């Protein structure tokens, strides 16, 4: 795309001042960078063509509201604290006194700039630089929504923090930027739930950075259930300190187009991450997942397992990278992408990449793309399960393999419940 790209109406409208001066400067610089940067080249690979969104027609989202549908969705989760945003604006906040008393901060990022500007400034952009890519720069320049979560040293929250984002104006653009800071020895899980109703086109850009201090334990569960015509770009980047532990599950079920980047920087000895992905594609969904397991120190570990189940004409492109720096000796890294194609028109591509510069490491990777195993189906049918049930069981098992690696009973049950609800909604779509 040309550098002199037309400045769309909505982009100008969103590029409005925020309270903190430092952020205002940052936004202006990001805006400049966005305009100066060229779009990244597409991978040298014969991928299925991605659907194009006509950005000209998009509007700035209107005022947000806490609709019954959002209330219902929030109620299906158990949480220690919750924030709900619609159209990028905060519409509900639940922060019990006992959680607040521990020093936990949960607010919209905008509010955080007013109340905790210095704290935000000291961390903002340290995991994900505001001009890292063109899409990230646009996000930094124009973000409206997003949260700030701060968990002080040695504080442990047993139940998850729940963040629900929604978009209720049709044909609109939502950009949100979130910052999660988990201090040394603290422990938290965060559910990032994204949902919108109907089948209106929309552009969603969601960037979240996580800074995990030494020995911190973080679990992220991101549920992407945007409306079926949405175009979504997400970037999640985590920076892990010494012996910090981060598990990240990305569940992708919605949108017409979703380009997700899930990146983890293992910055200190002993940092450990588990990246899990579960993609359920149907209709003409086009998904791309870029992952980075970035080993920058010795004795770091990463394990990635991404499964996708594709029906109808759905498409998935997995593009993974394990990078092991030359100082990162005695690291363990693993990467697996498995793709189950349930229809003739569905398709998947997977490229696992390794760049390993240390010589004393363990690393493994693999990818598979294929249909249902006929022998598994036959085994189940020979036990009296009809064809449809047998296939559902195999698919559920395939998904379960990923979910169970969460190591958190409450989250496992809730993610399973969420998926069951999703699959129930899918029922009328019959296989060809």
């Amino acid at each position, binding site marked *: 795309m040309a550098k002199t790209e037309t400045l769309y109406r909505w982009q100008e409208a969103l590029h409005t001042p925020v309270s903190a001066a430092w952020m205002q400067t940052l936004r202006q610089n990001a805006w400049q960078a966005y305009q100066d940067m060229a779009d990244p080249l597409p991978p040298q690979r014969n991928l299925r063509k991605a659907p194009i969104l006509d950005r000209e027609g998009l509007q700035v989202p209107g005022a947000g509201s806490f609709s019954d549908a959002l209330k219902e969705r929030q109620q299906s989760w158990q949480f220690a604290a919750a924030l709900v945003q619609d159209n990028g604006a905060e519409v509900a906040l639940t922060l019990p006194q006992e959680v607040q008393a521990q020093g936990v901060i949960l607010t919209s990022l905008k509010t955080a700039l007013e109340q905790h500007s210095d704290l935000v400034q000291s961390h903002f952009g340290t995991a994900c630089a505001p001009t890292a890519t063109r899409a990230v720069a646009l996000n930094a320049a124009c973000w409206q929504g997003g949260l700030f979560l701060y968990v002080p040293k040695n504080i442990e929250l047993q139940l998850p923090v729940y963040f629900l984002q929604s978009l209720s104006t049709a044909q609109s653009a939502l950009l949100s930027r979130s910052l999660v800071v988990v201090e040394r020895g603290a422990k938290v899980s965060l559910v990032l739930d994204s949902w919108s109703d109907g089948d209106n086109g929309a552009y969603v850009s969601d960037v979240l950075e996580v800074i995990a201090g030494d020995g911190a334990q973080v679990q992220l569960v991101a549920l992407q259930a945007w409306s079926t015509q949405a175009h979504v770009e997400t970037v999640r980047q985590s920076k892990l300190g010494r012996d910090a532990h981060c598990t990240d599950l990305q569940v992708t079920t919605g949108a017409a187009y979703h380009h997700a980047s899930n990146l983890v920087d293992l910055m200190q000895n002993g940092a450990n991450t588990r990246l899990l992905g579960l993609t359920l594609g149907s209709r003409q969904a086009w998904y791309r997942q870029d992952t980075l397991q970035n080993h920058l120190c010795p004795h770091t570990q990463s394990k990635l397992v991404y499964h996708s189940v594709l029906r109808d004409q759905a498409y998935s492109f997995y593009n993974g990278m394990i990078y092991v720096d030359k100082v990162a000796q005695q690291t363990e890294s693993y990467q697996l992408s498995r793709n189950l194609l349930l229809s003739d028109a569905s398709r998947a591509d997977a490229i696992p990449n390794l760049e390993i510069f240390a010589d004393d490491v363990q690393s493994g990777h693999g990818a598979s793309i294929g249909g249902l195993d006929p022998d*598994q189906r*036959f*085994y189940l049918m*020979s*036990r*009296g*399960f009809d064809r449809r049930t047998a296939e559902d069981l195999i698919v559920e*098992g395939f998904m*379960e393999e990923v979910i169970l690696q969460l190591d958190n009973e409450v989250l496992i049950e809730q993610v399973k419940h969420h998926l069951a609800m999703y699959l129930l909604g899918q029922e009328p779509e019959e296989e060809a």
Partner: protein
Amino acid sequence: MQNNDACLIIKDLHANVGDKPILKGVNLTIGAGEKHALMGPNGSGKSTLSNVLMGHPNYTITSGEVIFRGENLLELAPDERARKGLFLAFQYPVSIPGVKVFQFLRNMLQSRRGTDVSVRDFRKLLKEKMGLLNMREEFVKRYLNEGFSGGEKKRHEILQMALLEPALALLDETDSGLDIDALKTVCESINAVAATNPDMGLLIITHYQRMLNYIQPDFVHILFEGRIVKSGGKELALELEANGYELIEKQFRQPVSV
């Protein structure tokens, strides 16, 4: 023998994998309550026969007929065959990751019975059957055949048989992968199922006499190059054990056309 109603009648059954004929005219009748042993060298078509009877999609029936309890078996989908009382204990059971044994077994029983089985009733039944097979309760928390040892897979197959109480059970080399003690336990369970279901027919596929020491067959058949070439009583199995298949091969080897 309990009664003489035929449980299974196979008439001149021919089946191919692709263009390659594997079964070349199998004839076999199993009466209700009868125990049959099927023996034969590697590659003679024993597993093919059991898979064809269960309805595996890899095989094409080119001619012949199979009547199961008065019905044309070949018209039915594998799951319908199962619900009508046919059971196959696989030689090599596949693993299905992420599917929990407990849920699998309970759903399986419900589909066979066509009614709900409460968790409480099911637990009770499961406990009893697992006790017979000397299986530990933790077993049902695992995933279907995932990481099971050879012996565990075979016990699990027989556990399913014990729960389903089929009208006809085909046991494809259930003895392989079992040590002596396990073989005894498993055979005793099979006998226990047979004792409580006196009309159940059994087709025991094996290479060895040792399983037949525990489960006395009424008939022994030898499958060779896709046909049953010899049938007899249990003495035939002893004879084979003593002499191997050499005599059979000499007598029945078809000239190979090149």
